């Protein structure tokens, strides 16, 4: 079936040694996880940005914290609504106690905690993309080096240095490098995109956190 396609991927993988196969398996798992993270985080970040923008429109329209809180319930995945909700919950718990001191400071701390938690939530699993982007080519290279070592050993056993004896082993070994690059390139691209988007959300949270705190007292 595949005999003719001498350079076919199936033929190459079938002729590879166990170490190269293990490397290929690791790289394929890396690639699957990377793509899952990219897809998952892409939707996550997009939804967060969209809901944050919608909430900000409402925030500028409505000056009442109670109404804003009611609106923020509709944006469960947005980062800014989540930060606002955390501040509001803290504010509503303190304002009942009139003697509570340093109300503003406590709300600020609460908002800051939520910003950190939201940053963690956004960046969760994203460093894995960086890991794949950095290590996958080297893992592939390791497989290639190992495969070429085996190929040269086989060449020595065959007692022939002809192109026909050398080329298949090297070709099989190079599949590992190619797979490493296939895993690494999307991971790096996804990592760059997600870090850029998450960085924007984090800046928005840091910018609007004081405004949220002030909004509780200016209503």
């Amino acid at each position: 079936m595949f005999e003719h396609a001498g350079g076919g991927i199936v033929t190459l993988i079938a002729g590879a040694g166990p170490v190269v196969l293990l490397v290929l398996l690791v790289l394929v798992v890396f690639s699957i996880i990377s793509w899952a993270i990219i897809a998952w985080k892409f939707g996550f970040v997009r939804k967060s940005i969209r809901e944050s923008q919608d909430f900000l429109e409402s925030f500028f329209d409505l000056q009442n914290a109670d109404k804003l809180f009611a609106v923020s319930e509709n944006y469960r995945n947005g980062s800014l609504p989540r930060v606002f909700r955390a501040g509001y919950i803290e504010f509503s718990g303190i304002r009942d106690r009139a003697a509570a001191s340093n109300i503003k400071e406590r709300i600020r701390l609460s908002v800051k905690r939520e910003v950190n938690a939201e940053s963690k939530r956004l960046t969760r699993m994203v460093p894995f993309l960086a890991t794949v982007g950095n290590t996958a080519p080297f893992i592939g290279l390791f497989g290639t080096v190992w495969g070429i070592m085996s190929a040269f050993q086989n060449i020595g056993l065959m007692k022939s240095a002809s192109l026909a004896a050398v080329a298949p082993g090297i070709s099989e070994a190079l599949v590992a490098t190619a797979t490493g690059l296939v895993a690494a390139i999307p991971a790096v691209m996804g990592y760059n995109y997600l870090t850029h988007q998450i960085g924007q959300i984090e800046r928005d949270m840091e910018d609007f956190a004081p405004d949220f705190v002030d909004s509780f007292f200016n209503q």
Partner: protein
Amino acid sequence: MQSRDELKQEERRFYVWIGIAAAAHVAVVVAVVVFQLLYVRMHPPLKIVNVSLVQMPGLPGPAGGPKIPEAPPADVEGEPEQSEPVAVKKVSEPAPKAEKKVPEPAVAKKIPEKPPAKAPVKAPEPAPKKPSAVDERKNLQAALEKLKSKSSAEKPETGKSSAASNLSSTLANLQKKVASGGSGSAYSGSGSGAGGGRYGSGGGGAFDPYAAKIAGIIQNNWSFSSQMVRSAAGLEVYVSLLILPDGSVSEIRYDRKSSSEYLNNSVRVALAKSTPFPALPRDRATKGIWIGFVFTPEGIKP
């Protein structure tokens, strides 16, 4: 802060995405394999033909042309008497021309340049019928017989009358020697007969039919294409053979090898294929004789 339910929900979403990614990878691999299969079907493999450039299916020797197909046995047997006169004619035709040309030194000098271009010599022949291998052998034998009789009468120039294609270079060489006063070439030695000079026929320039016969045999077994060497200039292999009375070769001496290993190997193979040679003539069947040959991309020179 994130609740546990939210975390679990996110994890569940992540696992769903992992499943989708795994399915996508499988789909990509399947697509690649299918694409390769389709590509192979759309572009069927080219048949590989191994061609040995060294052993071409043509005539041995520098010409390397296509081998003349042997005529079917019926043709050979059907008109043996008709072909023989033609062969005799072919052999005898150039003789008078050669006799005329030999005394003229200018013409004799030009003759050695002719052997590389064998085709033009054959082209003007009146009988375009392709000579079979059997005819060619008969021609050769007839020519040799004639040469023997004429050489015994001390007319070496008549040896050039042979029209056999594989002897043309030999004869041209002989003509050159005759024209140069029989002193022999620089490498031919100054001895008389086969004893003193291995290359060439010796001081008198007498034609040696036995050497010519052996040269023809070696020529037939010599597979060499001048296209395989970069430059034919200066490529010469000087070989001397000690031929015993029974025709076996007791010693092969390479007096000078060429810079082309291909030529050297082809000579070695040709000699290995050609031995043993026919037995020596009775009048020379003593201890054995040394015969020298010069192999060049243009042909064999005795």
